[in-house]
């Protein structure tokens, strides 16, 4: 198995923002107590990307997350997608309140404890925090090459080279599609538009077989599951959790209403005449030159 590829996936337990599950307060903010938590949408895509490596390269997959004990749900859901071989939860009150640097320190140490890892896969960003910083910071702390916004990848297992496609938005200019190669080990963060292709019949058959296996494994996920405390990981408490976080959340406030930039004419939906006039105006507007 000299050519085997060992994969780690970093995931996160996040509020479920899908309709029917998410609950908002009357003021438009998220009602956290009424919104359940699940495997984050981007973590699910990262898990899918890891499964690709299982089907193509028979990878061993270890999924990890830092979070409360209830984050095992997210690990189980990831296992259903990627047929993970091991699930690691880094859970300790010492980790609580960490910013991205404090989180990256714990996750980096966890990944180092996994033994030899060739490829780490992370999601694009969390739907709640939305920073997108933890993946690249973990890569940097590991000393791994980092590629973000990856929409597709393959691995040359002989030369141990990663081939990746990235989609980069040059905001205000254009988008760029980039193809890169880089030596393993590497950490990639997966773009929301990631797509995998199973091109041969044998890949598709294997896909189906391994999906079945994943479903069965997830039923008994506890067998594959391990909790690590700060002590188990051997991290320095000074570098994780609140003490290891340079930043604090100083204040959370409602965004004050900006000064109205336009004075809206208000039309009530029951006013057929005014709606009619508006329709006419809109048509004129789009038909006029210039």
């Amino acid at each position, binding site marked *: 198995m000299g050519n085997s590829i060992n994969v780690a996936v970093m995931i996160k337990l996040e509020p479920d923002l899908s*309709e029917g599950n998410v609950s908002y307060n009357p003021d438009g903010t998220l009602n956290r107590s009424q919104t359940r938590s699940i495997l984050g949408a981007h973590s699910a895509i990262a898990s899918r990307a890891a499964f690709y490596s299982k089907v193509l390269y028979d990878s061993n997959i270890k999924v990890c997350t830092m979070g409360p004990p209830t984050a095992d749900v997210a690990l189980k859901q990831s296992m259903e997608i990627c047929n993970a071989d091991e699930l690691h939860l880094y859970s300790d009150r010492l980790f609580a309140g960490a910013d991205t640097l404090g989180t990256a320190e714990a996750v980096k140490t966890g990944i180092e404890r996994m033994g030899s890892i060739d490829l780490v896969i992370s999601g694009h960003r969390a739907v709640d925090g939305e920073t997108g*910083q933890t993946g690249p910071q973990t890569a940097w702390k590991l000393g791994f090459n*980092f590629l*973000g916004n990856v929409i597709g990848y393959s691995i040359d297992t002989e030369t141990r080279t990663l081939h990746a496609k990235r989609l980069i938005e040059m905001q205000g200019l254009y988008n760029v599609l980039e193809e890169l190669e880089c030596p393993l080990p590497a950490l990639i963060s997966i773009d929301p538009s990631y797509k995998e292709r199973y091109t041969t019949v044998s890949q598709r058959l294997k896909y189906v077989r391994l999906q079945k296996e994943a479903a069965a494994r997830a039923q008994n996920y506890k067998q594959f599951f391990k909790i690590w405390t700060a002590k188990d990981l051997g991290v320095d408490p000074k570098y994780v959790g609140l*003490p290891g976080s*340079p930043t604090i*959340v100083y204040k959370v406030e409602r965004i004050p209403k900006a000064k109205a*930039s336009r004075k809206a004419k208000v039309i009530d939906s029951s006013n057929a005449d005014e709606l009619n006039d508006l329709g006419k105006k809109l048509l004129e507007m*789009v038909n006029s030159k210039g």
Partner: protein
Amino acid sequence: MKYQHLFVCFEHDDGNPLSVSFEMLGEARRLIDDFNKKYSLDEKVIAIILGHNIRSLCSEAIQAGADGVIFSDHPELRYPKIVIDTKIISSIVRDRKIVSEAAQNTSPDYIKPRYMFFGADSIGRHLSSTVLAELESGLASDVNKLVIDDVIITHEHKTKGKAEKYEKTLFMYRPDFSGFLWTQILCLDNKNPELSREYSPQAGSIIPGVFQPLKKDATRKGKIVEYEPTFSGRDLKIRITKREVLKSEIPLEDKKAVVAFGRGIKDSPETNIRLIEQLAKQLGAEVAISLPLSKQPYKVSESIKSTYFIPARVVGTSGKKISPKLYIAIGISGAVQHIVGMKESDFVVSINSDLNAPIKDESDVFIHGRLEDVLPALIDSIGKLKGGK
């Protein structure tokens, strides 16, 4: 002084500057001018530019507000590459010699920047993360307001529960994902004697389109200095093998009219989107969405999902900034992230059942009502007008 100056990581693609670069420089100039006045100091705004054949960008950065520019010019740096860019930027900001060439009043005990800005986009989001991991300091992402002030902090870990004064603190405001809450992020030293540690620079990634660039001033003077980068063989093994500039699949920017929808479609997404499609067709408009919709929160047919719930249609900070002649916002409440993308439109019509929705303040016409009632009526009247031609 160990920590000095505000460094701006200037973004461009092969010499084409991204507008966020000028926006960051504009805000940096305003902040540092106030800072120098308030604290009777003379700190500088320094732009860092990595690339190939980028001399003209250096002058542009000076004209846009920088006091000094430190650049590296090398064929390997032509396109953004995170690993070598991180190493070079981190080396530059820790190199007292090069920093004092760009800013002559740099103190003899200078170690690192005081403040640092990046763009909150495809380049800066990741680059800021790795640079700050290397510099071991704090980073706030997606910032849309900045204030420098002194503050008294009492914090369990930072100050061991004692009240401590933090001077020249950068208050970094970021809107949360709902767009209704503002979180103030501060990067603070650990003054707790048991955990004593200094965190500098205080860094943030800045949302594109928020801050005003300065008017270009060709008479502005500044120091431009070159930094000779060194590469390790390992870094050069990351190679770009192909690069292609894409035209947007959804030409929102070129359209005269754009019809956008948001979470207000939730009661019957499929039916409502069909109505929106119809209205867009009547007006020759392209269809856009607000960010939450790109996360595919509703169960709809596969064709609707793949046609509409896609990032390429998003208007706002995480999508496109557009300025069509006519913008119709249907069931969009008007979170700040969305407003940034559409506020330059000529004429704005919004349809919303909530009379207090913030979108009203950005609208020329606000139709108060359920979109299920308004859309059929509007489509019907436009249909008759068109038919009657």
